[in-house]
């Protein structure tokens, strides 16, 4: 294999490469889902896998999400490492009973004797002009289910690294793929992919001193953009990309907020009962005396995801983030 230089790759390409490398490295890795074979998935993430590894390794299943995840459980029981694709966020709901009652619990139910190394890939979130049921941010459900790891990449390199780590994990991982970042590009060397990221470490994407934006997945680029725009207001914003929602990297997040004294949690998911409440609460528990203002949340509204023509009003954008930053009681402190 010849070494090639860094070149732009999309997140979708990095994911494909991650699947391919995992399958090549370990014959027990099997991909299954709707349209993952000849079509290569509706987002083309499984492109070429059926051809390279055969239909037994990359299998078009019947159209039944509980069946897909349920059979994956059985496959994992027998020592395989299934990587399941749910075609869209909302179409993972039929598989919730299998996910909650079995996938998340089998290790626990059997005192550790029957771990289930299953990766459930879920394209999620909006901003792609999808009609109803195609843009849900369902991470709150997964976070509230003990026994699952929940990770979501925001960069091309993380897409590869976190996916490899997820597949390598002996625990089930819900791997949330931000749909609107599938076509985002980054300089990346597909011949020498990034080292596998350990699951559970947040990363500071942009250092700053005024306040911390805590975010993940599709909202990371939005926060970075907001941070750039904030310079004009004299705010130097730090942006923390959580990458893993379970486990949660309290250390990195709390360290940042202790430094800045102010924080806004940003995500697309609905606000009420969404991830932001958990994050704000735990940050406050840990950083109470460092906080100049309550931790605020900028999130999707508490509604069913809107139709395409209205989604821009729903999604947290740069302005809404900066409005929240402005409410961080600047008069009160540093």
């Amino acid at each position, binding site marked *: 294999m010849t070494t090639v230089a860094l070149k732009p790759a999309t997140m979708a390409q990095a994911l494909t490469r991650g699947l391919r490398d995992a399958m090549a490295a370990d014959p027990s890795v099997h991909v299954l889902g709707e*349209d993952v074979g000849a079509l290569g998935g509706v987002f083309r993430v499984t492109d070429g896998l059926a051809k390279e590894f055969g239909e037994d390794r990359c299998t*078009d299943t019947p*159209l039944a999400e*509980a069946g897909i995840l349920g059979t994956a459980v059985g496959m994992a029981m027998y020592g395989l490492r299934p990587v399941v694709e749910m075609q869209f966020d909302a179409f993972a709901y039929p598989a919730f009973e299998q996910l909650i009652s079995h996938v998340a619990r089998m290790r626990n139910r059997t005192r550790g004797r029957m771990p289930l190394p299953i990766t459930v890939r879920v394209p999620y979130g909006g901003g792609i002009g999808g*009609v109803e049921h195609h843009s849900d941010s369902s991470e709150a459900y997964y976070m509230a289910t003990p026994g699952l790891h929940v990770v979501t990449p925001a960069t091309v390199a993380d897409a590869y690294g976190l996916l490899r780590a997820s597949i390598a994990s002996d625990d089930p991982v819900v791997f949330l793929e931000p749909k609107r970042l599938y076509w985002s590009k980054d300089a990346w060397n597909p011949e020498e992919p990034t080292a596998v990221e350990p699951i559970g470490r947040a990363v500071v994407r942009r250092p700053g001193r005024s306040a911390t934006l805590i975010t993940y997945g599709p909202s990371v680029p939005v926060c970075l953009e907001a941070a750039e725009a904030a310079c004009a207001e004299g705010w130097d914003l730090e942006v923390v990309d959580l990458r893993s929602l379970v486990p949660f990297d309290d250390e990195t997040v709390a360290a940042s907020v202790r430094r800045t004294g102010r924080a806004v949690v940003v995500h697309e998911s609905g606000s009420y009962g969404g991830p932001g409440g958990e994050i704000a609460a735990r940050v406050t528990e840990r950083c109470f005396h460092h906080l100049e203002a309550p931790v605020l949340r900028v999130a999707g509204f508490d509604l069913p995801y809107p*139709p395409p023509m209205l989604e821009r*009003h729903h999604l947290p954008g740069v302005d809404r983030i900066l409005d929240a930053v402005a409410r961080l009681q600047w008069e009160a402190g540093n």
Partner: protein
Amino acid sequence: MTVMEQRGTYRPTPPPAWQPRTDPAPLLPDAEPYRVLGTDAAAQADPELLRRLYAQLVRGRRYNVQATALTKQGRLAVYPSSTGQEACEVAAALVLEERDWLFPSYRDTLAVVARGVDPVEALTLLRGDWHTGYDPYEHRVAPLCTPLATQLPHAVGLAHAARLKGDDVVALAMVGDGGTSEGDFHEALNFAAVWQAPVVFLVQNNGFAISVPLAKQTAAPSLAHKAVGYGMPGRLVDGNDAAAVHEVLADAVRRAREGGGPTLVEAVTYRIDAHTNADDATRYRGDAEVETWREHDPIQLLEREMTARGLLDEAARQSARDAAEVMAADLRTRMNQDPALDPMDLFSHVYAEPTPQLREQQALLRAELEAEQEGAHR
């Protein structure tokens, strides 16, 4: 299979509970899809019905073509075409009485329109200004349903409720071959049979679920063979033969209306276009297969029959085409206008009354929009 025999004092008893409740034989489908056009049965077909079916088929095809064109012009987010399947779409709509209910899947815009829903309102979902564009109660058409097979239990519940209320209402629910694999399909059919609900399930077996061919979807002799497992009749019909689909559905609707319970109809058809305009069908199927099916085109099948019976001449064809063009032109014109949208509507229909939490969010958006309008914002 086993021969009973007395042994000393021991007389084997059959398990007490064993009473098969229904004779399975009449529930099984015929060996081949039922057809009318080009067969002796065609002579029985009502000319008036054939004319109505024809007009709607031509209109339906034109609708599919127009809607697909609108996706290219950016006027629709996406369109799942039913070209090749118009016979099913049209028959499903025409077979129902006004008081009946239609439960369409996401592919069945055509049936929705054929039932009387305004063509633009039927496309609201796919244009993206709202989810369901029409009032479901106006023409008794449930919202176009995207999560596959989830509309089937709705149809059962509605039909059951109507029967409990003493109303003479039948529900017809549409689903694809892929949708039959979902648990909801199973549960809906089972509830329908146990409750003897007046509902008709129409499976359009168009050969594919996106890229997945039927052979990867089921190993059953036919999808209609699933019916016996619920205790309802399964019927198999040529889905491109509008007269046959109409007849089989009409039988099932009549049976349901008379208290005979549900029926499962499998219509064998083919999706001529890609899954949607966004799909690339060449990745999973060859042109040759498509071509074979073009030879079995629903409009042509009906045209040939009607021509042979002297029910259709060039003038009649032309007038059907003209009517379709009028519809298409109107659709084009109206779809080329931007819909009037009020972002504040986002909050209007989450609950009967917005919660205090939603009111706060509404105020936030209102302030943003006002600031935006004043151009004062940042």
